[in-house]
Structure formats: C-alpha cells, structure tokens
C-alpha cells in the first residue's frame, strides 16, 4: 500500500522514532568525566589560594609603603633644627675661646663650613655646657638652668643675652637675630 506522506507527517514519524533514544555509554567515560571534573576543581582551588596569597602580599606591601611614608613625614621636622642652632654658636665659640680645651680645636674646623656649623654647634653646646658646668664661676647659672624646665631656655637666653653683649661688646653680630627667630 503506497502512502503519500507530507513533510509534517514524515518529520513527525522520524521524530517519534527517536523520542526515547538511549545507548549505554562505555564505563570508562564516566571515570574520565569525573576525573576531569576533579582536576578542574583542584585547579580552581589552587587559583583561589593563589589569588588570596597575592591579595595578602599586595596588602602587606601597601601597609609597609604607608608606614614608610609616615616615617618620612615624621623625619622631616628635624630639618628645622638648624634654624635654632645658631643660638648656640656664639656661646660655644665664646666659651671655647675662653677655655682653650681640646674640644675647641674641633669647633675651629666647623667654622670652615658655616652650613655644617649649625648642626654641629648644637652638639657642641651640650659639651660646652658640661664644661661650663664644671666651672665654679657659673655654678649659679647652672643651678638656675637645672631648676627651670626646657621651655625656659629661651627666656634664659634672653636674660643672659645682655650680659654677654656687655662682655664682648664688639660681638653683637649673632645674638639678637637668633633669639628673635627662636621666639
């Protein structure tokens, strides 16, 4: 019996034949699929760990960088110190001239480099103070210094200033200017 089929009928016939198609796959495919899956997940985990390490490293680097920056900032203020240093200069030189101790010779070298003198002068000031303290003549002055706090240094300088000016007379050159800058 011949049967003329239309496209739709033919298509439907073919489709219905394949509706519940099933062919059992070989066993080894399952193993291969799940092995590949496990490999992928392991790779993914390693990726996550690697990313974590990178992030932590970047954070540590960033924090370290920030700390370095703050350290630089805190280190900059001492640049202003030389401004205060000239206060000590005349005193030092004067005392050294008077005392003629071995330390004085080092200070003479500093004179050659005026810029460096400011920095070294402040150090010398402490030394000369010590020398000065050892002198019985200045015991009163030393006592007044030790009693007064650090803040009183400027006052002390300003109080002593006229006396020094009287003594040296011709060496008016440094003292007034320096004292005003410090205040």
């Amino acid at each position: 019996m011949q049967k003329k089929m239309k496209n739709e009928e033919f298509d439907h016939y073919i489709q219905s034949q394949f509706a519940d198609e099933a062919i059992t796959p070989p066993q080894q495919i399952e193993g291969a699929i799940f092995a590949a899956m496990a490999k992928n997940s392991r790779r993914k985990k390693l990726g996550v760990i690697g990313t974590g390490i990178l992030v932590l490293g970047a954070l540590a680097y960033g924090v370290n960088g920030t700390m370095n920056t703050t350290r630089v900032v805190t280190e900059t203020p001492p640049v202003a110190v030389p401004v205060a240093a000239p206060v000590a200069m005349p005193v030092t030189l004067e005392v050294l001239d008077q005392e003629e101790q071995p330390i004085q010779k080092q200070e003479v070298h500093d004179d050659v480099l005026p810029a460096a003198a400011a920095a070294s002068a402040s150090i010398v000031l402490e030394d000369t103070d010590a020398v000065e303290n050892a002198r019985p003549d200045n015991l009163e002055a030393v006592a007044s210094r030790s009693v007064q706090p650090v803040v009183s240094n400027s006052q002390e300088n300003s109080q002593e200033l006229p006396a020094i000016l009287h003594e040296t007379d011709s060496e008016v050159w440094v003292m007034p200017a320096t004292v005003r800058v410090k205040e």
Partner: protein
Amino acid sequence: MRAMEAADIHIIERCKKGDSNAQRQVYARYSSMMFAVAIRYTNARVDAEDVMQEAWIKVFRHIKSFSEHNSFEGWLRRIVVNTAITHYRRNQKHQFQLDIEEVHATPNDFEAFKEIDFTKDELAKAIAQLPKGYGMVFKLYVIDGFKHKEIAEQLGIDLNTSKSQLSRARRYLQDVLHAMSQRAKKE
C-alpha cells in the same frame, strides 16, 4: 510523575552545590540518552565519546544557570547537540563534502516508502547515509526541533541554505527508505 520531578529538582540542587554523588546520579540517569544523541550526530562511537565527555563537563560547569522551570532533559539534549555541532564544525574542514545531487537522484518527490515499519536502527542507518551537512540540518530540524534560523547560526550557513538542505535531505531519505522497503519485500 510529580514525585519524580521533585526528586530531580533536589538532585539538581545538590549538583549546583558541587555534590559529586548527585552528579553521578544525574549522569547515571541521563548518560544513555546523551550518548545516543552524541552517536546520532557523530555517526562514530569514538567521536561520540569525545562529544559525550565534553558535554557532561559543560553540564556540571554550567548547571547553576539551569532553571527548574525548564525541562532538564531538554537542557541536557541541547548541550550535547551544541557540543556535537562544535565537534562537527571543528572537523568539517578536514572532510570532503559531497553534494546530495551527486550522491543520489530523487525521482519521486514526496513519494514515500511503502510501509512504515522501520526499526529505529534502520532509520538511524538511513539518516547516517545523508551527506554530513544535509544530515546535520535534517537531524537538527526534524529530530531535535531547531528552527532554520538557529540551524543557520549554529552551522554558519545561510537561512535559505538550511531550508534547501532540509528539503533535499527529506527527499533523499524518503528515497533511501523506499529502496530499503523494496529490498526487504524482495527478500
């Protein structure tokens, strides 16, 4: 039926969480269907195994994107078909493509075969005889329900080419089936 669907949803949810036992259950349930589709498109067991493996890895990798409102089997079928198409296109350049006119003449338009009593294997063998490109269009359109636009996009061909290839494939297949039924009748 309802209970089956609920069980399916539960297993799929577990798969989404990466539960390997659930993945194996899904595999056990649908691997035969997937493999049959893969064989239908590749016409070779070795190639079908490659397609099958690739498709299942895609399934588990993208299962989070599956919505429970859709048919899970339909979703799986789509994935294996798309993987087979990718496989076909990858190998297409290495294969010699015969035009259907060169393969066989089609004397009777829509003159169908005598009796519709072919087994699935016989039909599969007849479809496998179609030239590759025509066979792909026929299987995608007739068996897997793709539209011509989708077929054209997937295979990288023109829309009209898809339509004409389907028409020629139908005629060729009907002719082959007719010949088969004649041969069976003689025997």
